[in-house]
Each structure stands twice: as C-alpha cells, then as structure tokens.
C-alpha cells in the first residue's frame, strides 16, 4: 500500500484553494497571498505526484469572453484523500481558505 504524501502547510493550502474553487494560478495566488515563485512550483510537484491534474480551457470560451484561455487545475481522487488527511493535520486549513462561492 502506497503511503500518503505528507504535505507542507503551504502545499496543503494550495491544494485546499484548488478544492475550494480557485482553479487557476493567479486566483490561487490572490487567495493564499503566496508569491508566484511559490505557487507554481508547488503546483508542478502536486501534478507530478498526481494529486492534481490540469487542462486548458477551450479556446472558444476564452474568445467569447475576449481573454486568453486559462489553465485550470482540479484535484484527483488521490489529491482529495491527501487533502482530507492534511485537513486533520492542519485544522485551520478550511477556515483560512474558504470555498470560492462563500468568498464571493
């Protein structure tokens, strides 16, 4: 049985932000207050560990809204399990990063 990765507080916060609906890099930066040099490398590691996966937004949607297409991130099943254990480890995680709808 593979052991669950133990995430740092920062990485867990990024994972929580994605789960909360902040699904692209800049919104995660805004939500967590972390600099780009921290957020993007952390997301690369999470993606390599298959805790999150990414997909590009369809060009047609971006064109309709007259903006470049975004790269969206979402949690994998493994990511959700890891996030659950991280929430137990860091109890304040959910309060620090509330869901996107709650924020708006």
């Amino acid at each position, binding site marked *: 049985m593979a052991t669950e990765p133990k995430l740092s507080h920062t990485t867990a916060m990024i994972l929580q932000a994605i789960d909360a609906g902040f699904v*692209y890099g*800049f919104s995660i*930066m805004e939500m967590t207050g972390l600099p*780009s*040099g921290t957020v*993007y490398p952390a997301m*690369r590691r999470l993606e390599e560990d298959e805790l999150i996966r990414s997909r590009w937004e369809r060009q047609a949607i971006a064109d309709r809204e007259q903006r470049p*297409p975004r790269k969206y991130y979402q949690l994998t099943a493994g990511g959700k399990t890891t996030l659950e254990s991280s929430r137990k480890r860091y109890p304040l995680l959910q309060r620090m990063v509330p869901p996107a709808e709650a924020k708006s």
Partner: protein
Amino acid sequence: MIISALRIAVHSVHLGLLRTASLLIPVPRRSEWLREWRTELWYVMRECSSEFTTSPRPMREAVAFCLGAYQDAFCLRKRSWQKHPPFSAAWGGAPLCLLVLATGLFASWGIALLSPGVRAEREMSRIRIYPWQLLQKHSGPDDRALNVIAEEGVKASLGRVQRYFDGFAYYWVTHEPISSKAAPKTQWIVAHASSDLFAVLQFPIRFTLRVPEGPDQLPRLVLSDETWKRDFGGDPRIAGTEVHVGSVNAKVGGVACADSRNLPGHVNAWLVDGNSEIGTDNAGFVVGHLTPYGYFQMGPRWVVSLLGIVLAFLALPGITCVAIGEYGSDSRKPPLTRRLRFWAFLTAKVSLLLPFVYLASLDLDCSFVQPSSHFTGYVQFSSSLLLSLFGLRWILRDQQRRCPVCLRRMAHPAEIGQPARTLLAWKGTELVCARGHALLHIPEIPTSWFGEQRWVCLDPSWQFLFARPGGTSSLL
C-alpha cells in the same frame, strides 16, 4: 499616447523576463510553460491596469510575478536533471576523457603564460647576453661609481629579472711600446688583464701556448686577430714568441677570436698577468658573467622534461601492467577501423599528456625555485618524472577498461568464479559495455591459460538488451 507606449514597453519587459526564464525549461515542455505564464501575466496586468497610471506599485507586482517564473523554471530544470543527469551520455565516453586532458593542458599553458617566472624566462631566452655586452667602466681615481655599459635591450631585460654574477674579470688600457724579433717596433694599445679574463669572456683562443704557471714564468700576451694578421702576417707559429711590452717581457700565448673587437678600448693585445692589479690612474673595465637563467646544467628546459618522460616510460612496467589486453579465442574481433580507432585514442591521450607534463613541470619549477638557484631544473625533472609516470599509468589503466568498439568505459563489474575452482573455470571480474558491444574478463588469479584480461565482443543481436543510445543501461 505616452501611457500606451509605456504600457507596451513595460509589457515587453515582462515578456522578455518570461522568455529568458523559459530557456531553463526542457524543450518539450517549454512552449506550454511559457503559454501558461503569459496567460497568467495577462490576468495580472488586467488586475493592475486600473492603478497603472497612478502608482508604480502594480508595475512592481507584475515584475515580482515574472521573477517568480525563474523560481518555477529552476525547480523544473532541477527535477529534469534529477531524472536525466546532464552529460550522462558523454559520461565515460572517449571525448570526455580527451576533453579532461585537453583542459589540463590548456590550464597548465595558461598558468605558464601568466606565471612571472616563466614569462621572465621566455623574455630572457629571446635576449642572450654575452659577457662583452655587460661591462662597468671605471674612469679614474675620482670616479667612485661604476657605470654599466650595456645595450638598451640588455639593460631593460636586467631591470625586469633579478640575476646574479658568477664571475668577474677586469682589464685596464695603456699605450705601450712594443719590440719583437718577429715584428717591427711599434706602439700598441695594451690591456693589462686579470688572468681569468678570457675564461669569463668565454672567447676561444687560437694557437694556445701551454705555459706552466709559476712566479718565474713570463706573462702571456694574447694578440687581437687584427694585430696578429697586420704585424705578424698571420703566422700560425706565433705562440711562444717573446715580445717586449713596455718594461716587461712577455710570451705570445695565442690569438683571440675576431669577436674580441667588440670589447671597448680597441686594444691590440692583452697582457694576462696573475699579479696585475687594476690601475688607479687609468680607465678600466670590469667584465661580469651572468649565471645562466632557466637552464639546467644538463641542457635547456625541454631536455630536462624529456629526460623525466623517458625515465617514466622505462619505469612504467614496474608500477603497472603495460599489456592492453587480448581478444578471447572464441570471440570475434572488432573491425579494423574500430581497432585503429582504439589505438588512435591511446595515442591521442599520450600526445595530450606529454605537453601537459612539460608545461606543468615548468610551472612548478618556476613557482618554487629561484631561477638562478642551483636547484633550477631538479624540481622540473622530478615533477616531469612523477607526472608522466602516474599519467601514463592512468592512461594505460583507462585504456584497459575501455570497450574496443565504442571506447566507452566498461561498467557494472561482477565477481565471477570461485577461488577453489580455478582449475575448472576462471576467477575474476567481468565488466560489460553499457551499450552491449563487449564483455571484459579480468582474471584475479592468472593462470597459464588465462593470464591477461580479455575482451569478448558480443554479437549485435545482444544490443537490444542493453542501454538505449545516450541512456544508461536498461538491463543491469
């Protein structure tokens, strides 16, 4: 108008930062990585655009965002190197080995160019100073200083390098009446010289008269080439002729070579007398002989290194096995071109080592020994010997561990056999070429039927089991 131009300029700076950072990203991922950062930058700029005209803060934030791309790029590059170490394809290859040797050679050459000792020696070797080029003139009783008479080039080179004199001689010049049976009465310019003058000057003397030294013997008179021809008709039996010089009798001891005319004073003859003292009332000249600079007693620098290298070649069989190896009896040999390449590689390594040994030993000698010291050359000789000895040993051992087909280092050593069964099978180490060209068997206990290491070249059909080109072994 100005604002929009400023926006374009700022945006170009941001894009330039991102593009520069993207150079760190492995090529297959680079375009997508750059696309994501450019997209994100667009959103950052949109957020900042409302404040763009009123405050520099948004611009700073955008720059900080772009600088974060470098951290991301460094992380990706680091992980890429962890997965695929750089130069892994070149590692163990023949070009890398030659590159290491060439780097050593260029480094020693560079040190030789910068080293003050070597530079000074190079300059001194260009300007050869003959004893007659370096004289000191004593003008008379009131002259307490000795003025150096030397050419400008000689003076300049002496000013740059400290050198020592290892011999002095002197002569002082007078006009003396001369009478002899062999020549008409005349007046000459005669130099009263110390007995070691010609030894210091290193002038050869022709028709030398062997006169035994002693207090009752007549002083020797050495004629100039010009005077000998003019007053004695170039008579080769001139040696031993008695000549009356002023108030003393002297015997002609020989004829100085034509170079003697370079000496100041334009003398007709030198009266060499061990009891001669420098005259206080006459102009005199002190001749100094400089110690050799950068020359070992046995010869010039390259001879010293060559001697060390030759000795190293002779001593090499004493410290390592010089046999390169053989092919197994049941093994096919590589093609002739491959075998020639194998030997060309060995020759190239030795060719790079030898100039390296010369330059490195020269650097060491010039760094640790004073140029005019008696030890000049000994450090060079010993370092040449040691560097070439251990360098050649390394080259041989490296060659013995190379695949004869691709010249890469053989890898993955494995113990084979048992000591108790050496009569039935060989005991030693087996190495394999990481690209599947050959096996190398090195016997640990040499026997009459297996004394030297052997290559066993593998059939090309084996290669699919081994490493991909440029990668590490997938089998082992």
